[in-house]
């Protein structure tokens, strides 16, 4: 059968070595990670992560090639990709759900009998939510606006303005990460100083990791936009990055509301 005799709208993917190489990277990273946590050297972990990043790069390079060959990415295939991205984000939401649960378990008496009566626990000096965290909230909200601006410009087929919007979004993402690092530096509580630190650092830390991933994703989109990969109707990679970014944004709003503001309320506004 020749490719011209297309009988269905689906993308039949050629065999690929990247999945099995990524897996080998993940396995090496896992074994190397456990080894390094128990006094061994760290190179196994680093090699594994490196191999995963390399495989992911090659894999996505193939995906970008396929998206541009004019054959594989039919409307049906793009619909499938959109559903896939939404499902992936749904699973990410459930991942953060676990960390919010941990926070609730430590702070809300009707959820846990061992919840703390005072929060933050005695001796913990929380960060002022209306300092750097509020600035970060505004930065992230603004970045949500710039990415939406970029999307609208793309839909109007204004590639240059779209790239501008993406550039601004990436810069705002980098500023957010930088500010978050600054804020960690100001914190008076260390990583292993008890349950307040545990919930604070893992929830905000995993959010920060997602910001970094989202920033890279948007950066790739900026680069692809510059190369003219997107069209007004054909920009599934951009859509995925934008949705992911909005998800990161919403998680932050919950973090700000719960952990930064509500979680420090009794410290800054004693009853």
């Amino acid at each position, binding site marked *: 059968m020749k490719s011209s005799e297309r009988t*269905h709208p689906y993308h039949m993917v050629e065999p690929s070595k990247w999945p099995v190489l990524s897996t080998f990277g993940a396995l090496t990273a*896992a074994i190397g990670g456990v080894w390094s946590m128990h006094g061994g050297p760290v190179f196994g972990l680093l090699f594994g992560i490196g191999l995963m990043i390399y495989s992911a790069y090659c894999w996505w390079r193939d995906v970008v090639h396929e998206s541009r060959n004019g054959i594989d990415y039919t409307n049906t295939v793009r619909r499938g990709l959109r559903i896939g991205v939404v499902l992936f984000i749904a*699973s990410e939401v*459930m991942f953060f*759900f676990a960390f919010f*649960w*941990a926070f609730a*378990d430590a702070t809300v008496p009707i959820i846990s009998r061992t919840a703390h009566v005072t929060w933050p626990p005695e001796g913990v000096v929380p960060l002022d939510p209306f300092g750097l965290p509020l600035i970060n909230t505004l930065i992230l909200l603004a970045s949500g606006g710039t990415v939406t601006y970029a999307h609208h410009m793309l839909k109007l087929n204004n590639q240059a303005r779209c790239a501008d919007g993406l550039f601004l979004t990436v810069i705002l993402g980098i500023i957010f990460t930088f500010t978050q690092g600054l804020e960690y530096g100001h914190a008076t509580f260390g990583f292993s100083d008890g349950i307040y630190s545990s919930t604070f650092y893992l929830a905000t830390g995993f959010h920060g990791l997602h910001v970094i991933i989202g920033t890279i994703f948007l950066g790739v989109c900026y680069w692809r936009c510059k190369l003219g990969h997107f069209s007004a109707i054909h920009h599934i990679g951009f859509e995925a990055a934008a949705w992911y970014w909005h998800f990161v944004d919403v998680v932050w709003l919950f973090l700000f509301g719960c952990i930064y503001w509500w979680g420090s309320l009794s410290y800054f506004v004693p009853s």
Partner: protein
Amino acid sequence: MRVGQGVAMGNNHEVHPSGWRRWLYSTNHKDIGTMYIVLSLIAAILGGSMSGIIRLELMFPELQFIQDLQFYNVMVTGHAFLMVFFVVMPAMFGGFGNWFVPLMIGAPDMAFPRMNNISFWLLAAALILLLLSAFVQGGAGTGWTVYPPLSNADYHPGPAVDFGILSLHVAGASSILGAINFIVTILNMRAPGMTIHRMPLFVWSILVTAFLLLLAIPVLAGGLTMLLTDRNFGTTFFEVAGGGDPILWQHLFWFFGHPEVYIIIIPGFGIISQVISTFSKKPVFGYLGMAYAMVFIGVVGFVVWAHHMYTVGLDADSRAYFVGATLIIAVPTGVKIFSWLATMWGGSIEFPAPMMFACGFIFLFVVGGVTGVALANSGMDLAWHDTYFVVAHFHYVMAIAAVLAIFSGYYYWIGKMSGRQYPEKLAKIHFWLFFAGVNILFFPQHFLGMAGMPRRIPDYPDSYAGWNLVSSVGAFVAGIATLLFFFIIWKTFSSGGKVQSNQWGPGATTLEWTVDSPAPFHTHEELPVTNSHMPAE
């Protein structure tokens, strides 16, 4: 050709990879399904051997041969992890799901074939990590529930539990990617005319299971990450001394763990529906009720988790809620049982091996379901918690019922997968041996549990002797039946006769029976058009 150069290849299906590349680099749903089934067979040998060691130790009172008691804990843990994550899930969801979802909905392959490949290989990597966790520095003896403080750095200081945690992380990533793949395939790739309400029930079962995986696994991943940082980086999520709460782990674990038991059994519902309909030569009774019963079980399965935690000191109102919510699940489950029976009612029934296994499934599932209704009551569970009654209950309802569903599906579809006929007489002997074995094995455990015998303990007082011996004898019968199954596999492939594209006749109405046996490398390239529940009729 060079791999990964997808440019301008388009729909070119001439490419037929061979040798090891065919398997390692596979993007074919049938090859990947086959690899899942092979992995599950390998894991079944390992997990089955561990249960053999457990039953040998428990055959008589006092310690038989185990010197290091942690070794017994490791066997209990390894058996559970292997059977749940590396036998039942790969066989049903990864194996039969990959093989038959595209075939049944009339799609040429899965939505994301490369992602399908990494789902499989991540599971293989997770298996290696799990074996490391069992065999390095004393092994992980935490039980599959991995409760802290037993699983924390004080009681399991070595790397074993860390390997176990990462194994579950990797297996979880595999499952999430697989779930996304199945949902997109089912929502986006049904053949023309195959509406949602015309999908075979097996496809429905995989759809529901995929949603459960998608939403439950990440919560476990969050909990596992907390456990990992508690163990290695000084956080105190589950450490009372640092203001944490070990009960939090139980919540997070069972918020995943309860949907997980439905993840195990729901694809079995799908298989049984196909088999019973085929061999009764009738459409499934109450098709929509059957489909939405699975959806209902899946949804309610997310809000009953604390029935695993009645003894931790939840307040009475919480327990009352969890009792009620749990009992409600008996309703859609009853819908399924009675609809299977009603499907058979008035049918022209045949009893080849898959149908026998399906009927066996119904019996085992009902026994386990009835003890489940009993255990759902908080007051009763206070007495039964952590006894062999619970062990008997969940082995009936999700372990051996699931395995019978797998055997049923295996005999039902092996002709389609291999093109060869299994030996019918031997398969029937396999059924009777296995069915008798598992009942002798697990039924007496109800008595032991009622008498108060605790689970996960290698020794017991003399008063529990007797039924433990019976149980162990049952285990050996089931073990012999399993060896016979491997012999049947060998026999099928070495001397099984060729089978037709539809070997089961007029009752087999789903699309997989319209393609050749064995199913060719690529199928449904011309999309089939359907306009009924029975597209192959």
